[in-house]
Structures are given as C-alpha cells and as structure tokens.
C-alpha cells in the first residue's frame, strides 16, 4: 500500500467541500423541502403512505418541492412526522405530527399552494422565532441531550453527502493523524463505558486487545439487540449508519484490527439494507477498503446476519455463531479481547458505544466528561414505553433521575393515574418502585438497585399493573431464550417460571416465595453466562420492592394490579349502568353480557374471560364496569331465564 501525497485531513476536506456543494445545489433547485421520517417506527405508523401522497402531489401539481427521507427523530408517539421547510411562506421550518395521507392533501392545498401552514397541526417550529413556539421549548425535545442521536431524524441516512456535509468522517480524518495508542488514551480519558449493557470501560477493552501479540485482530459491532422492546440500535443504524461506520473505522485503527464485522439480526431488513448502501457509498468515497483517506490504514467492514437469538448478543455466543457453531456462550476468561473470533483477539462493542466514538474524537475527552456523571460520563438512550404520555427514544445525560425522565421529559403518566413501577433494562433488569424516582440513573446506581442499564428499555407502569405478572413475562422470555447449556439457567428458570405462573393463577403453594428467592440467588451465582446470571433480576427486584404484590397473590389469591385474569372478576355496577344502554353487549367476545330484569346489564361470571373490552366500551359518563380481586368480591347477578346465553339458545 502506498499513501498518497495528501494527508487524511486534506483528503477529507476535499470530500466535504464536494459534499457541501452537492447539498447546496440540491437545496437551491427546490425552494420547498419536505422531510418524512422513515425508520421502522415511521413505516409502521404509515410513513410510506405519507411519503407516497407527497410524491404524488409533487408530481401531479408540479410543486417546486424536494421530498427527503430521514430516520427516526425519537418522537415515536408523533409518527408519521413531517418537517416542511418553506421559506417563501415566511414561516420557519415546521414540525407536523401524525401526518396521514389526508393531512398531506390538506397541507399541499393550504400550505404549499396557499401559504397557510395549518398551525393547529403544527407541533412546533424547528428553530426559535417570533411567530410560534419552537419544538425545543417542549420538554420532550429541549430536555434531551443528544450526542449519539444528534443527527438522527435530521439527515438522510441514504446520503453520504448529507453526513459529510454535516462534518461527518471528520473525526476519522483527525484520528488517522493520531497514533492508535493516542486514540485509546483519549477514549480511556473520556471514561467511555460500553453501552451494550454491562458498562465495561471501552478504552480498557481496546488497550487489552491492542496489547496482544497477534497477526490478526478483529472488531465486531454487536447489533444483535435481542431484548424485547429494545430498538435503539436498529434506529441508530436506520437513521445514521455512517456515524457507526466512522466509529468502527476509528476503533479498528485504534486496536489494529484487520477484519471488521457487524453482527446484525436478520429480522432487521431495513437496517441491513441501510448499512449495505452506506458501506457501498463509503467504499466509493475512499472511506473503506485500502488506503482510507489516502492513509496507510485500510479495512473492510462486512455484515454478518445472525438468526436473532437473544443469547447470541452475549459476546462469546456471538463469536461461536459467527464461527459457524450453535450460538452458545463459553466460559470467560479468556475474554474475547484476548482470544475471540477464531481465537484471535477480538473487540466487541455495541452500536451505541461505537457511534459515540466519533464525537469524542472530534470534541475531546473533556467535553464528553462534562456530560453525565463522574463514573458514567456521557448520555444514555432509553426506549421509554408503557404508561407515559410521550413514549419513544430519549437520549439524556447519565445521572438524571427517573422522576425527571418520566415526568418532565416524557410528560408523565396519562389519565391522572399513579406511578407504580419502572422496569429498566429488560430481561436482565429490574422493577423499581417509587422510592427510586429520585435516584440518579447510571450504570452503578442501577446495579445497586438490582437492575441494570441493559439495552436501555424502560417500561413505565401505573397502579394497574402487576409485578408478579411482569416477572412472569420476562421469565417466560428468558426461559425460551436460554441456550440450554447449563443446568441453572436451563432448568432453574423453568422452575421460576412455573412458580410465577402458579402465583398468577392463585395456585402457588406455601413456601413459593422462599423458593423463588433461593432459586433466584442460586441461578445468579451458578449460571455460566450473563443470560443466566441476570435472568432472575426481574424476580429478585420485584420480590424486594413489591413484596406486597407477591403476598397478596400467595395468601389471598388477590391481584392488586387487577391484571392476572384468574384472580379478577368484572361486574357491572347496577347503580351506574344506564337503563337501555347496550354499548358493552356487542364488544364482549363471549356473549357474557346479559340484560337484567331491570333492563340494565349484568356479566355472566361463568362465561366472562376477563378481557376488559366492556370497560373500554362503557360510555365514560356511566363508567359502570368494575374490576375486583379476588373474584369472590364481585356481586353475583342472576341471569334471567328470558335472556339465556347464546350457545344455550342455539342448542
């Protein structure tokens, strides 16, 4: 390999100038810019139809508008989102939420053609102005601190020019001017900890791999993302693939890797194709392959599509799976940094970890340390779901409290309900009660509480949720996903699950809670890999922080969260039920609702499957359907002979 005369920085400056030129040309040709969010979340909400409607309007009406796509901006509750930048209208760029094709026609007619921005459909302006509030003044926007997701939803993931013009690959250019050891030192100084769950210091991992004497070293990006409900890695790849590629190139250079791979689940087709496009573009621009940016450094990045098993996210199982074996974990040590893929030193990092690298190189270790806490610098990305007003992806500094995250950033709990629990970290994480609302969240405080950062899943639950059922849900998942190698995990989680199922049915025997506790502790201490070691966390934390839920199930066959169907009963409050109303009759899937002798409604306890449809159907001014636990509390209303159940009628 021979390096050319220009330095990497010069080569990059030339690339960037060209990209900026292209971006400017693109913008000047089209006075109106329409941007649609089309990551998987936007597509699921109907973003494709939104885009098609705009495309058709532009074509048929000859609008001077350019239609661009971006990834996910994190505001999943507002999808499909559209940003319209129409400077001639006198308005700043505007952010529209929930834009369906009907809204598209209205916006085309009124705004693009008529100049009226339909302010009632605008969430806010993209920048501060005198006319209307900017989105950044809203808590859900302004309180976030975006480092990793900074460009997500802002640039077109399919355009390397957009990334370059925005300063992308500049960090790589400056990294190539440093020695590998200097980069490792900078990452170490920044205090970066792995975002794949456990928070292992990234600089230390890189140093260890780089210090091995080996002819070949590997870098693997872990994009398995197997936690139920976690989708931030997918979103990052779909929204800004080049930042990950840039981070991987810097990491590969720093650790002296000669091979680099992305392990991604095959169930992420959009992420895979986005990556393929981005890798091809990087190759065309001399950012991948031999002599990157004219330097002596060269590497290829390959995509490896995994079957998407949860356990294959565990690093040793991931390596086995890439080697062509069944994806089962192995004992560590040796750690992959010493002996990994095909026994060569291998650095495995998460998508988020690698995507944080370019900003650290560009802005420095001190800048990064200025965000977050001393022990956990930087930001955390949570996918907030459940009983919150503004769910979605949220990037916040480490160390903010749960209260701030849930109530300030995400708008609190809808319907004036009370906070009961937050489940953090998915199947390896834990359930925290309201005493943790003011605990700053970082790697270490969560570990102390028995939870963990994990993949960053955060499920917010109101008073109508059952912690026994939540534990059961996660154990069902981990039992199915256990690789089956070791006895504790394979058989132990099965017994935990059986015991939890018995509790949710009111059939648990005395001693069940002690068994759950002891067995959980032993599974944590005895299991081979992280899956088994953390699988009991949902049980242990809920036993610790919600003991009353467990005791109610065990001793009174009562479900305080009114969730476990065998332990609840629906009935209709005859005082409230409106004579002649039959809103609930049609929705009941099993025809359990009957008319009483007073022309009100009753529920046939023997038929009711406790689905809750009748609650939703009962008009709010009557609000007559009640749920109680244990079922014996429900008053029995006799079904009159004149209104027999349907099947009796037929028979």
């Amino acid at each position, binding site marked *: 390999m021979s390096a050319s005369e220009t330095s990497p920085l010069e080569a990059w400056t030339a690339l960037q100038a060209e990209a900026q030129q292209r971006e400017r040309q693109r913008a000047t040709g089209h006075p109106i810019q329409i941007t649609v969010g089309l990551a998987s979340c936007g597509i699921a909400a109907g973003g494709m139809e939104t885009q098609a409607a705009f495309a058709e309007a532009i074509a048929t009406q000859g609008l001077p508008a350019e239609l661009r796509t971006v990834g996910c901006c994190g505001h999943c509750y507002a999808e499909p989102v559209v940003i319209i930048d129409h400077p001639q209208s006198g308005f700043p760029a505007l952010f529209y939420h929930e834009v369906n094709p009907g809204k598209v026609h209205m916006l085309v007619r009124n705004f693009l053609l008529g100049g009226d921005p339909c302010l009632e459909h605008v969430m806010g302006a993209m920048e501060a102005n005198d006319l209307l509030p900017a989105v950044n003044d809203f808590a859900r926007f302004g309180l976030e601190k975006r480092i990793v997701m900074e460009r997500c939803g802002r640039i077109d993931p399919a355009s390397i020019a957009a990334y370059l013009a925005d300063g992308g690959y500049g960090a790589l250019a400056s990294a190539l001017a440093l020695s590998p050891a200097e980069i490792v030192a900078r990452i170490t100084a920044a205090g970066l900890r792995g975002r794949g769950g456990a928070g292992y210091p990234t600089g230390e991992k890189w140093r260890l791999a780089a210090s091995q004497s080996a002819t070949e070293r590997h870098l693997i990006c872990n994009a398995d993302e197997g936690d139920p409900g976690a989708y931030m890695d997918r979103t990052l790849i779909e929204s800004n693939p080049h930042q990950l590629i840039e981070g991987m190139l810097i990491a590969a250079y720093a650790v002296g890797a000669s091979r680099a791979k992305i392990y991604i689940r095959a169930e992420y087709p959009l992420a895979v194709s986005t990556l393929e496009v981005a890798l091809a573009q990087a190759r065309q621009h001399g950012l991948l392959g031999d002599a990157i940016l004219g330097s002596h450094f060269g590497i290829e990045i390959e995509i490896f599509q995994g079957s998407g098993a949860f356990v294959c996210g565990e690093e040793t199982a991931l390596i086995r799976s890439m080697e062509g074996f069944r994806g089962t974990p192995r*004992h560590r040590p040796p750690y992959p940094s010493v002996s990994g893929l095909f026994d060569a030193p291998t650095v495995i990092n998460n998508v988020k970890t690698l995507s944080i690298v370019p900003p650290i190189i560009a802005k420095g270790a001190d800048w990064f340390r200025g965000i977050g806490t001393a022990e956990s610098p930087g930001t955390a990305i949570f996918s907030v779901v459940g009983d919150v007003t503004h769910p979605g992806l949220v990037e916040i500094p480490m160390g903010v409290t749960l209260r701030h995250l849930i109530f300030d950033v995400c708008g609190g709990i809808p319907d004036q309900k009370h906070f009961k629990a937050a489940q953090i970290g998915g199947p390896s994480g834990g359930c925290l009660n309201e005493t943790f609302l003011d605990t700053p969240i970082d790697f270490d405080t969560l570990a102390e509480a028995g939870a963990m950062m994990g993949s960053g899943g955060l499920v917010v639950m109101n008073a109508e949720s059952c912690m026994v059922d939540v534990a059961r849900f996660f154990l069902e998942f981990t039992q199915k996903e256990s690789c*089956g*190698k070791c*006895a*504790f995990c394979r*058989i*132990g989680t*099965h017994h935990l699950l059986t*015991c939890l199922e018995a509790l949710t049915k009111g059939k648990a025997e005395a001693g069940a809670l002690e068994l759950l506790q002891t067995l959980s502790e032993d599974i944590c201490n005895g299991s081979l890999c992280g899956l088994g070691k953390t699988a009991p966390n949902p049980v242990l934390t809920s036993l610790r922080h919600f003991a009353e839920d467990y005791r109610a199930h065990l001793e009174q066959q009562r479900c305080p969260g009114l969730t476990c169907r065998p332990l609840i009963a629906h009935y209709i409050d005859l005082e409230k039920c409106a004579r002649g109303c039959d809103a609930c009759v049609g929705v009941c899937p099993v025809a359990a609702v009957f008319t009483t002798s007073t022309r009100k409604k009753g529920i046939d306890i023997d038929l009711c499957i406790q689905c809750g449809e009748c609650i939703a159907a009962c008009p709010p001014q009557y609000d007559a359907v009640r749920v109680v636990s244990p079922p014996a509390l429900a008053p029995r209303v006799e079904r009159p002979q004149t209104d027999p159940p349907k099947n009796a009628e037929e028979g």
Partner: protein
Amino acid sequence: MVELIVDGHRMTVPPGQQLLAACLAEGIYIPHLCHLEEAPRPAAACRLCFVEIAGVPAPQPACTIRVASALKVRTDTPAVRRLQRMALRLLLSAHHIDCRRCHANRACALQSIARFLKVGLHPKPLMAIARPDEVDRHHPFIDHYPRRCVLCGRCVRTCRNGNDHPQFSFTGRGIDTVVRHYASNLALDKRCSECRRCVAACPVGALQWRREGAGASESVD
C-alpha cells in the same frame, strides 16, 4: 511447579494444570459431569464442580481454573455445597428416575453424586418436571434417552474431538434443549460401529448401543 493447598492437603502441579483434574488425580473428589480431560476448553455446563478459592469472592467451577500461581482451595464450604446441591436437584428434577430399569444403574454418576452430596434422588414435589420417558432412535445404532440425559455434552465433544464431524449435536432451547443425531451419513455410521466412544463417555444412562432388533428397555452389556 505450583503449590496448591486443597482442603488442607498440600500438592504441587505443573503450571497451567486444570484445577479439577489436579484434585481428581490426587484423590480429592469434586462432583462433576461435563468435565472432559482431553478437551481444550471446559464446557463448564453442569455447574457441579464449584470450589472456593482464597481471595476470590464467589465459588468458581474448578474445571475453568488453570492453576497459574499458588492457590488455597476449599471444596466443601457451605456456599459450594449450596450451589452443588441446587445444581443436582435441578438436574434430577428434569430427570426420569427409574434406576432399576436403567442400564446405568450402579454405574451412574448421578447416583454417586447424589450419594456424595446427600441429596435424595427424588426432588421435592415443587420441583419435579413431569415428562414421560422417551427413546430417540435417530441414530442408526445408538438409542438416546432424552429424559435421562443431563446435557453434559460429553458425547458431542468426544465425537467432535475423535471424528472430524460430530454425530450428535444440541438442538432446541431452554428446557426443551436436547441432544440429537441428525441425518445418517453412511461413512460416518460405519465409523460409529467401530468407535462407540460416546456411549462410553455418557456419565448416565442416556446413550445405549442398540442390538439389532432389541427393544427399548432391554439392556445390552
């Protein structure tokens, strides 16, 4: 040479020696099922061989420890026994116990480990997983009893080490994980009839050489 003190006994071993093998060679018994002397890396799957090492907070499987420097080891602390007994109870809870009709009776590692750890063969009612006994006849000459199998993987690894291609492999996940023989291959099948090492490697009665026409419950000696 490196000095080891195990339960008060002093011994010296070459550096790099596996702790479990060193103890077994000295006549210090540590329960184990998945240990395979010739394997390059431990499976560490049965989770029975726990020991406590001075200076290390939690019990560690002895098969995963390569002795590099002097160690003080205890094989019988309460923490060790608690984990071993739980691991054994878990294995037994998923095991179809019918020793009298099992060809491994009296030569079975589960029986001897249960005796050593003073754990009854029939776990508490809360723990038993009810599954009927089964015989898997996928292999042309070898019967496999999945409900007796402890999934130690010794057959899989013995075969992989001895032959270039393992005849048995793991399949399924969670509690449904089993060892299975896949599609017959004539050349390999022929080798099996001369090898039979997996049958010998099985620590319990889960693999049995099948005599032509022999019924499932008959034993072949």
